[in-house]
């Protein structure tokens, strides 16, 4: 539903009221921002001295970039593993054999239900008991992210394959394809296109969740920003927080943008008959809900006749 339909095109009095509201809300927003600024300023957070480190290349070279690499490395390894885990368990859940389907379903449901941080703690403490001493922070973060996001991706895979119209597999069986061929040649190529936006949204979640490594002292961006930098340059916590906050935002927003772009593209795509699968945890309601400004129970990709 278009938002503009909620209110009339304003008349003279309405325009005055809207202008007053605009002024009031500008003042309110400005007051909040100024309040934050004053608070920071009162504590001397805008002194050039504590921002100085961020203008020097050494700070970036020694602290921020290694932290960023730590984050990206964990995210990249976990993403590859999670995609593999998701593909294997997603397809296993679609199996015709009960002895494959049921255990895979249990694994997926359980790992989806466990709070991720508990999983990471558990792996972090379990690893030294099994494999002897060492630093397992990276491994715990990566395995935790793999198990959790892999389980979510398994559901995405299942939904993607289900999104291909049933007639297609019936037709494929009718022309004499085997089950393996149907999956490989008909369902998966179309399903993957439908899954892409949901997969990329889940990768945003994965990238965000690497920050959990902070709690078990994995050296990621958050750790360098909140523990190492303020210890090295005393008092620069707020500047560090702002700088790394902006880096996280830029990374995630770029990925989110990619997801939206992919979704728009696959919605237009003629290569697949499957509609894009909703991103897990996104607020998908009814048919075609929440996708356009029009709404009203009509799938946006269905032409009006």
């Amino acid at each position, binding site marked *: *539903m278009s938002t503009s339909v*909620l209110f009339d095109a304003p008349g003279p009095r309405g325009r005055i009221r809207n202008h007053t*509201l605009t002024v009031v*809300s500008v003042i309110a927003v400005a007051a909040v921002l100024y309040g934050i600024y004053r608070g920071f300023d009162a504590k001397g957070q805008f002194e050039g001295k504590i921002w100085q480190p961020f203008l020097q290349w050494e700070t970036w070279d020694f602290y921020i970039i290694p932290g960023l690499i730590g984050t990206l490395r964990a995210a990249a390894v976990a993403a590859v593993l999670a995609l593999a885990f998701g593909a294997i368990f997603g397809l296993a859940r679609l199996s015709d054999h009960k002895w494959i389907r049921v255990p895979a379903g249990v694994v997926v449901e359980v790992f989806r*239900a466990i709070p991720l941080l508990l999983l990471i703690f558990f792996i972090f403490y379990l690893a030294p008991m099994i494999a002897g001493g060492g630093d397992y922070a990276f491994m715990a973060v990566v395995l935790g992210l793999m198990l959790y996001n892999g389980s979510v991706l398994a559901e995405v895979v299942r939904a993607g394959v289900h999104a291909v119209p049933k007639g297609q597999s019936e037709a494929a069986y009718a022309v004499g394809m085997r089950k393996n061929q149907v999956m490989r040649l008909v369902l998966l190529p179309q399903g993957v296109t439908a899954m892409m936006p949901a997969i990329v949204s889940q990768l*945003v979640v994965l990238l965000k969740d690497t920050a959990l490594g902070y*709690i078990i002292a994995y050296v990621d961006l958050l750790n360098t920003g909140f523990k190492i930098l303020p210890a090295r340059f005393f008092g620069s916590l707020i500047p560090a927080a702002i700088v790394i906050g902006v880096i996280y935002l830029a990374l995630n927003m770029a990925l989110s943008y990619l997801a939206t772009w992919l979704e728009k593209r696959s919605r237009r795509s003629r290569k697949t008959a499957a509609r894009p699968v909703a991103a897990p945890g996104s607020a998908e*309601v009814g048919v075609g809900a929440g996708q356009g400004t029009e709404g*009203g129970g009509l799938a946006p990709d269905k032409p009006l006749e």
Partner: protein
Amino acid sequence: MDELIKYGPDLALGFLENVKLSIVGAIAALLLGTILVAMRVSPTPVLRAAGTVYVNVVRNTPLTLVLAFSALGLSDQLGLVFSETPTTNSFWIVAMGLSLYTAAFVCEALRAGVNTVPMGQAEAARAIGLTFMQSLTMIILPQAFRAVIAPLGSVMIAMIKNTTVATAGGFLLDSAAVMKITFDTTGASIPIFLGIVVAFMALTMPIGFFTGWLARRLAVVR
């Protein structure tokens, strides 16, 4: 198994803190999220922009960063203090960060719900002379809420699982923190881990079933 029995009471107390955080977070996030969604559909462009910026910034920031910033930045550095008792203070700091974070997701869910309300209803509301606030509170939002009960349930389940990140906000009494302390002394213990996992599942699964049932029951047939 002995370990679970030995540390059970501590872990149960920790879990109770997670439950308390969840309740406070759920109420605050629902209220804030509703205000945010009203901002995002309002006739005032500045409020719309402020709401959009807030939701996009918060959704793309890790919760760990939000909580660590609330504790180390806002509380320690800038003196935002809710209580003199350190544990009570960190509880409210975490509750604040958690609800500010969850509110963005509640807003997104509700906005999808607003999109399900047919145009004609808003037009009719306007035609009988309802103002923006009246049509929002009497026509649009009640239906939007009914349409998004199940997604809101998922948001709440995610929030309950997120209460374990309270450690990042300096709150050291929740079950994840207690589990970590226990593991420091006993090493990883499968019974303890499974115990907490079962406790969380006992909390989240009924919510999933209940919101699913409620969503079917209250669905607006169109």
